[in-house]
């Protein structure tokens, strides 16, 4: 769960940064936008690489296995009660 949360968190952080930079850039005069746009482009290409690394973590079979193991853990604890 921690690995999944870390992976998704990192991905989300970059999404948030891209969104914030885009919003900032829209407020700037057109001649000043180029630098921030290039930074956004860099972040987007990082995002694509990060997506590839994230893909195995959100694989449906893996998520189903995780869900099953948590359910089994809960059932085991309930059995002890």
């Amino acid at each position, binding site marked *: 769960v921690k690995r999944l949360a870390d992976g998704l968190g990192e991905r989300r*952080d970059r999404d*948030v*940064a891209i969104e*914030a*930079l885009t919003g*900032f*850039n829209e407020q*700037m005069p057109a*001649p*000043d*936008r*180029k*630098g*921030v*746009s*290039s*930074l956004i482009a*860099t972040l987007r290409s990082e995002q694509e690489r990060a997506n590839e690394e994230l893909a195995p973590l959100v694989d449906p079979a893996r998520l189903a296995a995780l869900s099953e193991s948590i359910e089994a853990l809960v059932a085991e604890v309930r059995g002890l009660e």
Partner: protein
Amino acid sequence: VKARLVKKLDPAASLGENAGRIVKARLDELVSFAPTALDRGEITAQHDMRIAAKRLRYVLEVTGFCFGRPADTARRRARDLQDILGEMHDCDVMLPRVREHLEALQAEDARAVRERAGSTPDLDPRLAAQAPHRTAYRGLDVLAVYLRARRELLFDRFVAFWERQEETGTWLRLERAVDAHLKRAREARRAARQAEKARVRAEEAERASAEAAARAAEAEAQRRRAAERLPGATEGVQPGSAEPAATDPDQPGT
């Protein structure tokens, strides 16, 4: 920063009691960062405090109902604190990235300008004025200024927010609510232990009484058996008496 170990957790204890111990540990953790984090330049302490606020918030989201309204207020304030410190953290992360990006563009431009200069003995400034990314610098500089100024503003908000929580006693009221819950749990446990002891004592007394009654019955049975062995003595046997009753001194065997 690693979460502090929560001591005295007990699977046999109630949810509220265990949650109380976790909340106290997380609250202590949060408050412990305050003196350092309130120093403008202490970025690491501010980051650690954000994580501590997050941990407190999440444990209160799950178990806050055990501690009433103070927990609900503290959960909301922990979320607000997490948001402010999170935005400060975003600035702290983004600012070096902006500078790094600017540096990368300038390094690339320097290489390009140098290439254009060819084998001339010195560099013509007009070549630098045509650097490919020159129009990108300004936006990134403006962004860096924005991030620095925003961080300053957020820090001021953070300090004011923290002072406000101390004034209104948000954390103190949570601590008191948890302490009261833990005290009630301790008292309930003590009462349960005393009740259990009383039950055991009552059972022991009952058992002792039953054993005494059994012993008395056995003694009575033995006496009866002994009396029956004496010819003619049974008529005069009185219940509860070890000796045959002296009914008629003229009767043989008496």
